């Protein structure tokens, strides 16, 4: 009952006096728009000013404070579709078709593990680490044509079909992350060795990439090998092929890199001397702990 509640409030609240009464309802926006002020009408009907010249600034800007120009914060354009472009990673595509072609033309040896330096030595790809390019990614064009077992190490895989195509032939796929410094060493290995720097140790992937590199579905290098085996069987069931026997693989197929290792057979911290055909290894304990951690 509204009257009862109002009277209850009356009993509890202060005495109603001449100064306690509320403002009238006529000053609401609706009433003010219906009864405009005389000075306001005069300002609108004036013969000069931005209103009469149809030159009002956008809504929300005071024509007097703006002094005829837009405020600075509106002159600079906004392009929100480019948000996060500084942190986005790029991967150059390589299809199964090009891989098969390279193998058929004997530019790549399928009996050895196929790595990023192997693919870069074909001079088909120009990877630029300073342009936020982090390696190569596998596309599924030519999945029906692919028919050689290989040990492939790639930086990104977009589709399950590509993984299935490789594993159907009896191959092995891993996704591997390389940070820009180790990438520059891998792209042109000879140039890197000529510089005379020790082999860098590879950094862990960034936080937004850790999830994919620990995912067995992406065959990440940090994933559990048991779960990878499960996923291989699952994919085989899904796409309807039979996984070949793992004992038939050659020992080369089982070669895998340490998460800190860049080159097959070379450890981080070693210095390669091309002229004298020697390798220098650090003996100090602190270097060994650093490079082996």
């Amino acid at each position: 009952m509204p009257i009862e509640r109002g009277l209850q409030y009356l009993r509890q609240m202060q005495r109603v006096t001449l100064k306690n009464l509320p403002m009238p309802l006529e000053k609401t926006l609706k009433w003010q728009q219906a009864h405009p002020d005389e000075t306001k009408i005069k300002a609108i009907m004036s013969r000069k000013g931005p209103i009469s010249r149809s030159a009002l600034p956008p809504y929300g800007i005071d024509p007097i404070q703006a002094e005829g120009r837009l405020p600075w914060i509106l002159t600079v354009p906004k392009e929100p579709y480019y948000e996060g472009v500084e942190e986005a990673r790029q991967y150059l595509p390589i299809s199964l078709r090009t891989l098969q072609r390279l193998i058929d033309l004997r530019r790549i040896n399928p009996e050895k593990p196929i790595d990023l330096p192997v693919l870069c030595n074909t001079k088909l790809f120009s990877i630029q680490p300073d342009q936020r390019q982090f390696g190569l990614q596998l596309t599924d064009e030519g999945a029906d044509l692919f028919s050689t077992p290989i040990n492939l190490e790639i930086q990104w895989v977009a589709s399950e079909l590509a993984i299935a195509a490789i594993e159907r032939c009896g191959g092995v796929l891993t996704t591997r992350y390389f940070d820009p410094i180790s990438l520059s060493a891998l792209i042109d290995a000879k140039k890197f060795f000529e510089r005379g720097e020790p082999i860098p140790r590879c950094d862990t992937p960034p936080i937004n990439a850790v999830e994919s590199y620990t995912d067995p579905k992406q065959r990440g290098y940090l994933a559990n090998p048991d779960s990878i085996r499960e996923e291989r069987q699952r994919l085989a069931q899904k796409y309807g092929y039979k996984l070949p026997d793992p004992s038939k693989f050659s020992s080369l197929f089982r070669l895998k890199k340490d998460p800190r290792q860049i080159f097959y057979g070379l450890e981080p911290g070693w210095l390669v001397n091309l002229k004298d055909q020697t390798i220098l290894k650090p003996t100090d304990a602190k270097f060994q702990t650093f490079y082996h951690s």
Partner: protein
Amino acid sequence: MLRSLSLVKILRNCSLQSIRYFESSTQSSSFSPESSANPIPQQLPLIVSRQLEYPHTRYPPLQAWLETLGQKRDDKLGIVDLHPSIWQTSPRLDILYENIEWQKTYKKIDWAYTPPHHEYPSMRGKPWPQKGTGRARHKSKFDPQWKGGYKVHGPKGPTSFFYVLPKEKRVEGLCTALTVKLHQNDVHFVDSLDLPTHQPTYLQELAEDRFWGPSVLFVDDTDIMPHNIMFASAKTEGFTLMPVYGLNVYSILKHTTLVLTIRALNKIEKKLLHALHSCDNPKDQPAPPDEP
């Protein structure tokens, strides 16, 4: 009045017939006023029920204590019935605001007047020639840009702010003012405004003992008041006497307490109920029921 209100609530639940058993010699509908110097009669309560016109369909009548000014001790003489249409309306503070605005502005006349161009002295005559003197060129000494010159669109003559608030709003305003006062314990009903002495201290101490605020409004039905209260209220600041025809929302809210006599209450209720329950046009309306 807190004590009285809780008792009032208890009594509201009891039936009226049980209280009527204790009724004294007075009749149920009317009440005989006391003379000025007599003490309170032995038989109490004096008033128990009042017949109300246009009884409200939903709410029962409200009840309040009947007090005296004849003695300093706060003896209650009985219970008074109040009509809920007047004393239990919804507390519309915006209608109170409108009434007060009306009361302030309908008498207002703005006397500001600035004479225009044609009411100024001679407009002919350049103050100095057009060229030759190093000063600005002017045509007359009384242009608006001059000191002492005319004003083009200034206030013109007496403007009145008179308007008449609709009758329904004025009636509603009085009813809400009375409910507001009642439900905030600021209304007191009194048998009559007869005092034993004319000394102002008597009335002041009485009001202080009973916690009646700094300003009290005494309302009687006629404009001829007893001599004692006239003298006492003239000497005290904040006490005003008023007949029923002078009752208005501004005065009700300005004074902290409101003291009504039974005769005033009867008159007020009659007038307000007649106004609330009549739907004639102002032209067709007959003469008001009572003379002021």
